[in-house]
């Protein structure tokens, strides 16, 4: 079986019980993605599949053969941190850092969803063409990522600062 992780094609063979998260962490040594709850409730294991965010703890690795996975290790380019990673440092977007890899992956995909015009449950006009990405929208759209340290204000600021200037 093949899977493309952070741009590299990797051949793997695992028991069908293996989650994508365990494949990444235990078989491939990519320990950036974290295991918080292992039941879909915290978002610490968030990775991108073909650019879309999912909880890798609930994903069976076999189901993702041939797909392109991006983990937090794949956000930096040639050693340069992603602008969102820099903003998390500047705006105190974390304390212990455990939820951070999930928060980062989630935020990257969240902005993509917003750019595609996907509404959220707090969007007033569901069919509106342009939705303002204000604090309420960011909080709702990031609600699948919990932070036990309560760094939410910093997280929202880091996201706002990074993506404010998007067209």
């Amino acid at each position, binding site marked *: 079986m093949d899977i493309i992780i952070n741009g590299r094609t990797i051949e793997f063979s695992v028991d069908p019980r293996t989650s994508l998260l365990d494949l990444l962490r235990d078989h491939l040594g990519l320990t950036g993605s974290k295991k918080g709850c292992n039941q*879909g409730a915290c978002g610490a294991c968030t990775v991108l599949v073909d650019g879309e965010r999912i909880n890798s703890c*609930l994903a069976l690795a076999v*189901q993702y053969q041939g797909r392109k996975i991006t983990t937090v290790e794949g956000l930096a380019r040639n050693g340069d941190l992603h602008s969102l990673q820099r903003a998390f440092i500047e705006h105190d977007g974390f304390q212990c850092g455990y939820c951070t890899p999930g928060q980062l992956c989630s935020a990257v995909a969240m902005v993509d969803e917003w750019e595609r015009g996907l509404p959220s449950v707090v969007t007033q006009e569901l069919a509106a063409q342009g939705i303002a990405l204000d604090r309420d929208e960011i909080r709702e759209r990031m609600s699948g990522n919990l932070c036990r340290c309560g760094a939410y204000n910093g997280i929202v600021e880091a996201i706002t600062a990074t993506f404010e200037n998007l067209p």
Partner: protein
Amino acid sequence: MKPFTYERARDPNEALRLVGTDGGAKYLGGGTNLVDLMRERIEAPERLVDVTRLSTEIEGKPDGGLVIGAAATNTALAAHRAIREQYPMLARAVLAGASAQIRNMATVGGNVLQRTRCIYFYDEASRCNKREPGAGCDALDGFNRMHAILGASSACIATHPSDMCVALVALDAVVHTLGVEGERSIPLVDLHRLPAGRPDIETELKPGELITKIELPPPLTKRSTYRKVRDRASYAFALVSVAAEVDVTNGKVRDARLALGGVATKPWRAWKAEEALRGQAATEPSFRAAAEAELVEAAGLRHNEFKIELAKRTLVAVLCELAGVAT
């Protein structure tokens, strides 16, 4: 987790053949419910048949309705322009459920067949008639704050957790299936069973029967919405939710379609409230009367009594919002 084999179906007939009828296999959608239940050893299939590559299409029908492939993701549903414009209650219900990550994985078919979140169903050390028929129900005298006030029995008070299904039953959705005896269609409101004495039998589906698509008739009106009341602002199951579509003409309710979530053992179509509303003045007192009519048989337990009044108030608030009546 018990060992199992994994296969991916390329078309509905292959899925049906791979799953068989011996009860040892399960269809796999996004896995967001099934994988969790397998880890908890509540489900233990020997074979998984991946149905996420079956139809994901969302297509308009000539009559103005819509057909949704069972493998469409929850996100795809909420993103679809016709659903946002014509069926806002459905888009809102989907967006009110779970998190963006889970909605990206979850399929429409899997959402319909997701199982209850009752804590006693999940806890192997507790008695649960759904998990083990005849064992008893520890929720009855337990911490039953999240449990059902409608449609419950002395064997089971677990709620059906889906938000999407609440909107779909209000919209008269029809489920299309493929089974060993061929294709058939079942109104969604009849798909889930009331628990009565056998809460372990949750739907009318036969062994191996595959959900292929969901069909929606045209909406009554675009004036529809979904409101979910929960313990935190986001990413929590409903205490009470209301799906409502109301056609108000000249100050009178011409027609309405209503459903309740979080309060019942299955997605609950509020027929009695609809009946009470039809032809009435679109005013707060008639909305309250309709809510009273629907909840007349509601039965509260030690910790969930509050849901009766909460359901009434939420229903009235949503009707006022849709009818443009100040509260």
